[in-house]
């Protein structure tokens, strides 16, 4: 990584799925220590953007580049991107029957340890590690013995995502509508966790529809995405304006 390069740099990114072009020359630069919010109407390409960053195989990158810490990650598999520090909190975390949350979390943790040639931890050592992280999101240890997301409420699923983010200590976290479906209490808990986790070495991308989340997590920039590109960038004030006026006035 070159010393002053941004954490994430997206250049003229064009992406399609099933021959439909979704992202059309998207540009975005994110530095360490910054929180960026991406807002925009349904179908504007926000979720596609998050999945492409994580390397979802269903999408084809037609053109452009994604640089993470100065080098292109387009050729990297999803798991390698994860090891490098890219984390995606899913909008709809999927249920995995038959696999306990504890096993899943430990395997994820150890996969990263292994990637960096660090010793893998045994189940007992892991309990100490995970218990501390559980506090971040106010989760009971009982969650560990349940199957991954199976029978979890909407709020529990989202908390589980944040727990994983904290555990993997990712440098770039993309939170795809992490606030949707949360009641006020859960929103506060999750926001608290995220704020505690954030520091000057990390960056966060918040994809959201609502200004509400941004009351708890202060973004440095707010971007409006429409039709596969960013059409406006502003400060936290922009989000308030959008809340009042909607997206129509931005249309060219």
């Amino acid at each position: 990584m070159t010393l002053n390069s941004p954490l994430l740099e997206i250049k003229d990114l064009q992406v399609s799925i099933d021959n439909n072009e979704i992202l059309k020359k998207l540009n975005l630069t994110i530095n360490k220590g910054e929180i960026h919010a991406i807002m925009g109407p349904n179908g504007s390409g926000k979720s596609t953007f998050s999945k492409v960053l994580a390397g979802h195989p269903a999408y084809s990158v037609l053109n452009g580049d994604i640089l993470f810490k100065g080098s292109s990650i387009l050729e990297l598999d999803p798991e390698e991107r994860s090891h490098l520090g890219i984390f995606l909190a899913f909008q709809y975390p999927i249920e995995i029957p038959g696999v306990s949350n504890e096993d899943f979390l430990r395997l994820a943790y150890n996969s990263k340890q292994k990637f960096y040639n660090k010793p893998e931890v045994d189940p007992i050592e892991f309990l100490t590690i995970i218990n501390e992280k559980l506090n971040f999101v106010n989760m009971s240890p009982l969650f560990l013995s349940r199957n991954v997301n199976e029978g979890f409420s909407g709020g529990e699923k989202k908390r589980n995502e944040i727990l994983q983010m904290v555990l993997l200590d990712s440098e770039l976290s993309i939170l795809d509508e992490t606030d949707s479906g949360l009641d006020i209490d859960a929103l506060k808990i999750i926001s608290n966790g995220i704020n505690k986790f954030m520091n000057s070495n990390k960056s966060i991308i918040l994809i959201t529809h609502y200004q509400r989340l941004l009351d708890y997590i202060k973004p440095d920039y707010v971007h409006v995405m429409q039709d596969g590109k960013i059409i406006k960038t502003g400060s936290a004030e922009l989000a308030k304006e959008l809340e009042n006026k909607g997206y129509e006035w931005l249309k060219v």
Partner: protein
Amino acid sequence: MVNQSNKVLNKNITKLVNQTYQYGFSTSIEKDIIEKGLNENTVKLISQKKKEPKFLLEFRLKAFKKWKQMSEPEWPYLKFPQINFQDIIYYSAPKAQKKLKNLDEVDPELLQTFEKLGISLTEQKRLANVAIDAVFDSVSIATTFQDELSKYGIVFSSISEAVNDYPELIKKYLGSVVPIGDNYFSALNSAVFTDGSFCYIPQDTICPLDLSTYFRINDQKSGQFERTLIIAEKNSQVNYLEGCTAPQYDTNQLHAAVVELIALENASIKYSTVQNWYSGNEVGKGGVYNFVTKRGLCVGSNSKISWTQVETGSSITWKYPSCLLVGDNTQGEFYSVALTNNYQQADTGTKMIHIGKNSRSRIISKGISAGKSKNTYRGLVSVTNKALGARNYSQCDSLLIGNLSNANTFPFISVQNSTTKIEHEASTSKIGEEQIFYFLQRGICLEKAVELMISGFCREIFTKLPLEFAAEADKLLTLKLEGSVG
């Protein structure tokens, strides 16, 4: 231009192509065979080669007559070209078939074959706590720990030996659970069976070792028709394991087995199978046709028979290990994992026939289908009017991998009295791209992800397997599925 989707796909396809069946080698050895084809003379010749008593020849001839009148069952959910029964070798044995006094006399080539399969028959390296009968094509070549077992009065030998050593037991029990004319394949087996295992556990004896038979089909043209008979006398207990492999050939081999278990009062038999016959290649060429009739008779009160099977091989599987719960308070169990990949087809399940009062049965079936395979559970729970207070619990779960595989469940339930309690649960789930992506995003590689999901799905069954089998089964499933997800 970079296409992520293609990249991942290509990687998986490459893996699929490189995947090998590690038991696919064949052994070249001098053989004593009966020319291919099947008629009354073939049956007589088999009996003659094995120097069998007259009653057994009559048993065979009766079966052959019956078989000629029957036709292949058409109800299974299986599609395959007609089997040409005249194009099969019905007897193939390694030469030098004089009675062996010890293992040193076994052809080293054969010992090596089993060594390569991970089954050590030589004295120094025997598996602790497991006695093994090794069956190669049509005959049993060695049985280990026989002397040790005989101290307990336990008989563990090839069925051919037992025919001569214990004719009374054979006469009494052979065909008593699976009658000659039970079905097309049992009739065929009864006519031409060549070897298999025989176990006799005397009264009040708990078998100190797990008994195990390892079946190997070697010859390209030969069918394997094995016959196993296990008798557990009053208050006895035995654990029996069965493993199977075959070389990799382009043509299909036929395997039609009959297994009969008899549990007398208070006796318990636990029968576990890990079936890994060659399953054909990734375009469906070759593989073993596996038609098996397995049935246990809980004749004494409080007796128990438990079937556990992990079915991963064969291009065609047709198999329904069943329990006849005749005695009062008897128990039947069926735990199954059936995995199909590529073009494999499996139609498997169980029958629980409740006749005794308060008889109980439990069925847990897990089907995993990947590739373009077909996986069918077929089961019958039948409670007669005499079986007052009978209970059954059935659970059938299917797991689909990819978009081209197929899973079916056909449970039949027939109840003839009102004091019966029956429960049936079923579920279908799928390992989808999104689940895999979730693992990958968290840094967990594809193999680990599939392994974790499969072993989670099968956990209930694997805990029923003997320890040394459970680890093997776990590994086997992952190996079999390599490259099928993506």
